[in-house]
């Protein structure tokens, strides 16, 4: 086990171990996860791209590796993958910037 970093790549393979300490909730989570990623109103390819974007937004290195793999397996083009990351980045930066309005409101309120 690496002592140099909190992120250990091999830990992703042990993800299912979370059920060892809470079996019922773990099982419900993995069943739910599997159900979510099945082909539905959205294709599995579309879901993989959404997952890739969200992985970046939540900055989960495990998820980024996993959904990069999935997207490549599903024949997703590199430009599509990068555009998905930009969508995540745009929402995150927008979410920061929109608070600029709150800042302006507050500044105006306390100004003469």
């Amino acid at each position, binding site marked *: 086990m690496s002592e140099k970093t909190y992120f250990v790549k091999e830990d992703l393979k042990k993800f299912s171990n979370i059920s060892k300490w809470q079996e019922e909730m773990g099982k419900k989570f993995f069943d739910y996860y599997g159900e979510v990623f099945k082909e539905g109103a959205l294709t599995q390819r579309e879901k993989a791209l959404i997952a890739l974007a969200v992985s970046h937004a939540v900055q989960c290195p495990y998820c980024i590796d996993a959904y990069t793999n999935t997207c490549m*397996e599903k024949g997703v083009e*590199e430009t599509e993958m990068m555009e998905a990351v930009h969508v995540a980045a745009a929402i995150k930066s927008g979410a920061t910037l929109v608070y600029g309005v709150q800042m302006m409101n507050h500044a105006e309120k306390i100004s003469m």
Partner: protein
Amino acid sequence: MAIKQKAKSLKSKGSNLNDTFFQLKILSGKDKAEGKFQAFTERLDELNEFPLVPSDVEIFQLNIGKLCNQTCAHCHVDAGPDRKEENMDKATLEKCLAIIKEVDTIHTVDITGGAPEMNAHFKWFVEECSKLGKKVIDRCNLTIIEANAKYNTLPDFFKENRVHLISSLPYFSEKKTDAQRGDGVFNASIDALKRLNGVGYGMEGSGLILDLVYNPSGAYLPDSQESLQALFKRKLKTKYDISFNNLYAITNLPISRFLDYLLQTNNYEEYMEKLVNAFNPMTIDGLMCRNTLSVSWDGYIYDCDFNQMLDLKVATKKSQHLDDFDIETLKGRKVVLNQHCYGCTAGAGSSCGGEIT
């Protein structure tokens, strides 16, 4: 248009991997010894499927030469323009023809290479097989059709002999295709596909079958054949107005140049782990080694083209060569297995005909 090769053959590079014994040593190396990757034979034994035996001999696959106009980065044959010596001669092709004629159960002759069309006896052999009423498959790399004027008429030749074409196109864009197969390959492949569509190949109602082969451009597994086929059909139609029949999704096996790539990029262990973890017992019934014989340019007999490239001949006392071919001995053989076989049993399975399950 000339193709600029991105890779060199292992042979011309003087790579250790040119020695098949060295490849087998890696496949059976410390990961297997330490139990990280269970022996493939043990895995089958647990399922009472070991030894693996053939169901019949229906497909006679000939690798008629390693000469090719391309040097693809993943090629399990280690083919290329420098492989001029290893090409099947007419006497060997005549021996194959006699067997194909004699063995009733063989319904399909599957011709591969290299670029099989570069063999001087290719057209003669296809015509003779067609006369026997056998289905003939040519594994055509597409770009050979565009390589020079003498090959430009191949589509008409294929049509006259009702040849079933199976052609590699790893992606519907230039960047990924050329990264795997050489600069200029994608555009030449598109030109060749248009030429084939032009004579009716891949067109509805023509009866001329043009199937494409997808294999991943890197250390990952293919997605489901059905979804990839839908994606390829949509992209090739809308971007290039190209039609084809079926897409075969094939897994890259960890041998030869693809093994070299895995080792060079430090992806070997992770890739093997993916294959081992994706083992699917449902693929065993449909493994191609169960109904196929694979013959090398010099007349030796193997369970499949991959075993051929690892020089793992059929495990029989006689009938390892065309010169003492005996169909009953071969039908009773035990298939030679090794760790690379995990490539054929991963996920939905992989064979020369694509997905298995």
